[in-house]
Every structure is written in structure tokens, then in C-alpha cells.
């Protein structure tokens, strides 16, 4: 367990305050850990994934005795110490070669974990092409029909989005869209087990197309990995539910009486009060003016009015 820190100066106080639970959260920090044994493929993959995640990433360059599926107490410690909630752990063994374990934390406790083995990987340096700048917002693509059917694929999709989506923003600079993370799901194996995943990263080139929309060309930037699924730990139902809660402040405000129908058209419903036709304001016309019956007292004034009207008639 970590000792609890009591802030003794303003700087520490600010840092601690930034770590508290908030309605609008910080960008999740990821830690990249090398296990007790790694291979070149794993090292390259970790380095590249780290480069993509920068600057919200911490790279552990030393080896760590860590086996997340047996004991994840280290992860809790690292998570608290670095205020990080995402992990990639690279290991390599005879039984599970070239393995990456993606892990997520909620409230510094393990939420879920997914293991993939790299079958074939080419690092970023393997492509002699331009790279995207650090800290750019990627576009994502999930190709294939598996992404909302198989629990492995569902979790992998969620992990990739969670790792790299960055800050949730309401606007994005069109010139700042520099690269794409494209993940393709391979077909299931003959035994019905989840098949391969193909992760590719491309930089985007916008070309003129003669119309307003640009023509897109992609140039492979790396890393590129072909992976198979390994072990998986799914989140506990109640914890998962708790982690998906949206604060009241961020929930979109319900607009009353405005709905969208099946065709996507906006339909409004108007509630009218009871209309009183006596009081309703129509076009102002003299003839429609309500007049009280002339009494003895104000006879003079009514006569005056009459006279004016007469004059008008004469002129015509």
C-alpha cells in the first residue's frame, strides 16, 4: 500500500487535487511494462504503442517480474503511484510467445484484462514513410463482422478506443487528423474460436478530388501487427456498471417535446393553451374596435369622433 500523502505545499496540493475523482476526467495515462522475459518483437511493439500514446504514457524500461493473470497486485501499486489506469505488459515465453497484455483499472482496481500474441509484427521503423506527429488524435476503423459479437473482439475494440481516443472533444481541427488505426477481424477458426486480428496504422493524405470532399489516400506508417487472442479477464458486472455511469452534468439535457422519428426527421409537439377568441389579437382595424355604448357623460367625445369620421368621408 502507498502511504497517504498530506500536502505540505501548494504544488503537491494541486497535483493531488488533479488526481481526485472528477466529473470530466483527465486523459487516461498508460504504463508500458516489460515482463521478466521479452523478445525483440514485443519490445518493438511496446515502443511503438508507447509512441502512439505519448504524451499520456509512462514507459517502464526496466524488466519487471509481473504475471498479471496470476497476480495483479503490482498493477494496483503502479496505478496508484503513477495515477495511471491503462497498462500494456509485454512478455515472451515458450508457452505464450510474444504476448501483450492490455489491462484497465477502475478506481485503481483491476477492471478487465486481455492477452494477445503477436504472430507477425513490423515496427514503425520498418516503414520508411512519414510518421504522424506526437499526441495527434487518431481516427479508428473496425473492419469485419466480429466486433460486436465475440467477447474477445468486443473487449479489444473497447481497449483500443480507450487507449487512444484521448480527450473527448466537441470540435476537432480537420487539418489535425493525421493518422488512422485500422483493426480488422479475421474469420473464426475452424473450431469456432476467435481468429486473428490485424492492426494497421496509416497516415492520411488528403488529395484534391474536384468536389468539396477530399480524396483520401493512406500510407502505412506502422506498427503493423497480426495477433491472436490469449487469456481474458472480463470485468465484474457491478463494477463495469459503476464504471459506465455518466455524471449528471455531462448527460445531454433532454429537450422536451422534440423527438426524432424512424426516418430521422425531427418532430415537435406543441401544447396550446385554450384560446380565447375574444381576447385574441388579430389585425388592428378601427371597425373591429370594441366600443362601449355611449353614455350621457361622454357624449361630447363620441360626437367629436363622429365628426372626424365624417371629414374622412368627405375627402373621398
Amino acid at each position, binding site marked *: 500500500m502507498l502511504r497517504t500523502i498530506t500536502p505540505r505545499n501548494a504544488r503537491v496540493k494541486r497535483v493531488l487535487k488533479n488526481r*481526485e*475523482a*472528477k*466529473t470530466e*476526467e483527465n486523459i*487516461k495515462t498508460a504504463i508500458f511494462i516489460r515482463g521478466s522475459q521479452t523478445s525483440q518483437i514485443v519490445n518493438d511493439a511496446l515502443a511503438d504503442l508507447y509512441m502512439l500514446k505519448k504524451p499520456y504514457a509512462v514507459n517502464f524500461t526496466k524488466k519487471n517480474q509481473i504475471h498479471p493473470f496470476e497476480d495483479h497486485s503490482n498493477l494496483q501499486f503502479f496505478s496508484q503511484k503513477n495515477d495511471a489506469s491503462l497498462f500494456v505488459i509485454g512478455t515472451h515465453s515458450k508457452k505464450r510467445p510474444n504476448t501483450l497484455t492490455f489491462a*484497465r*483499472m*477502475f*478506481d485503481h482496481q483491476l*477492471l478487465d484484462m486481455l492477452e494477445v500474441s503477436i504472430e507477425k509484427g513490423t515496427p514503425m521503423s520498418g516503414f520508411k514513410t512519414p510518421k504522424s506527429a506526437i499526441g495527434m*488524435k*487518431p*481516427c*479508428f*476503423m*473496425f*473492419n*469485419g*463482422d466480429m466486433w460486436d459479437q465475440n467477447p474477445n473482439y468486443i473487449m479489444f475494440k*473497447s481497449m483500443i478506443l*480507450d487507449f487512444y*481516443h484521448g480527450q*473527448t*472533444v*466537441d*470540435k*476537432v*481541427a*480537420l*487539418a*489535425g*487528423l493525421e493518422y*488512422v488505426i*485500422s483493426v*480488422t*477481424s479475421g*474469420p473464426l477458426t475452424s473450431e469456432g474460436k476467435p481468429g486473428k486480428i*490485424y492492426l*494497421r496504422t*496509416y497516415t*492520411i493524405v488528403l*488529395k484534391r*478530388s*474536384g468536389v*468539396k*470532399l*477530399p*480524396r*483520401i*489516400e*493512406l500510407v*502505412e506508417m506502422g506498427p503493423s501487427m497480426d495477433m491472436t487472442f490469449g487469456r481474458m479477464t472480463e*470485468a465484474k458486472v457491478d463494477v463495469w456498471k*459503476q*464504471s*459506465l*455511469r455518466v*455524471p*449528471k452534468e455531462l448527460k445531454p439535457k433532454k429537450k422536451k417535446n422534440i423527438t426524432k422519428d424512424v426516418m430521422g426527421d425531427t418532430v415537435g409537439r406543441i401544447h396550446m393553451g385554450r384560446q380565447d377568441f375574444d381576447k385574441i389579437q388579430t389585425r388592428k382595424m378601427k371597425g373591429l374596435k370594441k366600443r362601449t355604448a355611449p353614455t350621457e357623460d361622454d357624449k361630447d367625445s363620441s360626437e367629436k369622433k363622429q365628426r372626424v369620421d365624417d371629414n374622412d368621408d368627405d375627402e373621398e
Partner: protein
Amino acid sequence: MDVSGVLEAHKQKFKSVSVEGKVIPLEFDLGLLTAYDQNPIDEAELRKNKDEYLQSLSRDNAQLLFNEIFQLPTISDDNGVMAMLPVPTTLLPREKPLPKPKPETRWEKFAKAKGIVNRKKERMVFDDNTGEYKPRWGYKGINDDGSKDWVIEVPSGTNPMEDQYEARRDAKKERIDKNDKRRQRNLEEGAVASKMDQKTVNKGERPNMDNARSMKRKEIENQILISKNSTASAGKFDDAIKGDLKPKGIKRKFEPNVTADLSKEKAGNMSILDRVVGKNGEDLVNVRKAIKATKSRK
């Protein structure tokens, strides 16, 4: 004049932005700049020339995604043209739970009852003595303890030898201490109230502070009772203090020795027997362990 030929020629110069061959239209989550292509992939093509196929597939989907993004409403900014993104539809887990609401302080409760509303005051106020604007409080503020005055008139009826500077310093220190004590009290009461009123706190609302004072008292009493029982002799040999707390609500119950209905007594005894021997004697011996033990002894 027929310009369709010219337009056609102009079009021919560029590659198209439309993508054909998508049976199922793509789904987009533009808040996350994400496209989901549910069309099944071409396995034969994937096997034959994987990288080219993946690249062309990604390009087509990227084109469709960008067609969507470029049709979003835009605004111009210092950073160039910005597309306004909708709220993401894909749910991603949070990093930390929702922030707990802060419990009401005594002042807030009082102010609410009296209808006192906090109104904003300017940070800088005019200081008549120096003719300058100064902060209302804090560093170089006007609310210093008055110990900077170069001369202080001795108030009537006080000891003329008393150091008035020190008196002012002490008075300020006292005020600070008093405020700190109240802050501490608010914290304690708030902690107890949010512990007792978990239901409201979990809903994300402020806990009910109506009984915070009595609840805090109860909590302290409980802690005292626990600490009294926490000696080696469970409090048996401790001297009783006059007016000390006594544990409430713990009473032993004795059943009568002779009763007409014996079934209750029988059931009670049977349940004890079951717990000791196990139902039908099933769990009495762990057969697997027993076999292992006898084998290893041989």
C-alpha cells in the same frame, strides 16, 4: 452551351470520393472519429495478398469516415477549420468513480434556512490609508492583524504595560483557530453523515445532515465502548469510572427449564449435532485427502 462534357473531363482528372461495394452501410461514432464496417471480409483475398487488401479496405472506410466528418458543421478558429463533433455513442469505462458530493456545512445549512445567498465581492478593495487598491485578504491584503501600525493607542481600561501588538496578533490567531476548529467539526459531521446516509450519497446527492450532530455523538460513543472492550481482559479488570458509558441492548436470554413443547428444544439440539457431525455424515471425512494421506504413509 453543353458543358457536361467539360465537367466530365474535369471529373476524370481526379479519383472519386465515393466508395462502392458496401452491402451493409458503415456505422459511425463521429464523437470518437470511429467507423464500424460490419461487412464480412474477403477471406480469399486476405489470404492471398493480405497487406494490399487491408490497405484498400482501410482506405475505402477512411474515405467514408472522412466524407462524414467533412459534412459536419464547421467553425473557423485560430487552429484552422474545426468540425463540430457530436457526443460519442460508444460507452467507455471511467477511470475513477463519480465524485462524491460534498456534505453540507453548518453555515450552508443555516444560510439555506435564512435564505442568505452568497454574492460575489470584488477581490480588490480601496484602502483609504494608502490610497491604493489592495486585495481583500491574503498577501498584502487589508485584513492584516493590525500589527503593522506604527503606533497603537492603548484602549482605556487596559493594562498600559500590555503589548498591544501582541494582543492583536493573539486575537487574530484565536480567530483562525476557531475557524479551523469549525472546519474540522464540519468535516467530521460530514464524514459521519455520508457514512450513515449511503443511499443518498450513492445516488450522487448530498447526504442528509439533519441528525449529523447526534450521529457523530453516537459514533464516538460506539468507539469508546469498543476501546473499553479492547483490553486483554475485555475490560473486566478496568476500574469503572463514574458516569461512564454502559453498553446498551445486549441481553442474555434464558429459556425456561421445563416446557410443554419439546419440539423446539429437539430442533435446537439437532441443529448443533448436524453442524458437528454433518448431515448424514457426508462431510465428516474428506475421502480424497484421506486416501492421499494413507498412501503417503505406506
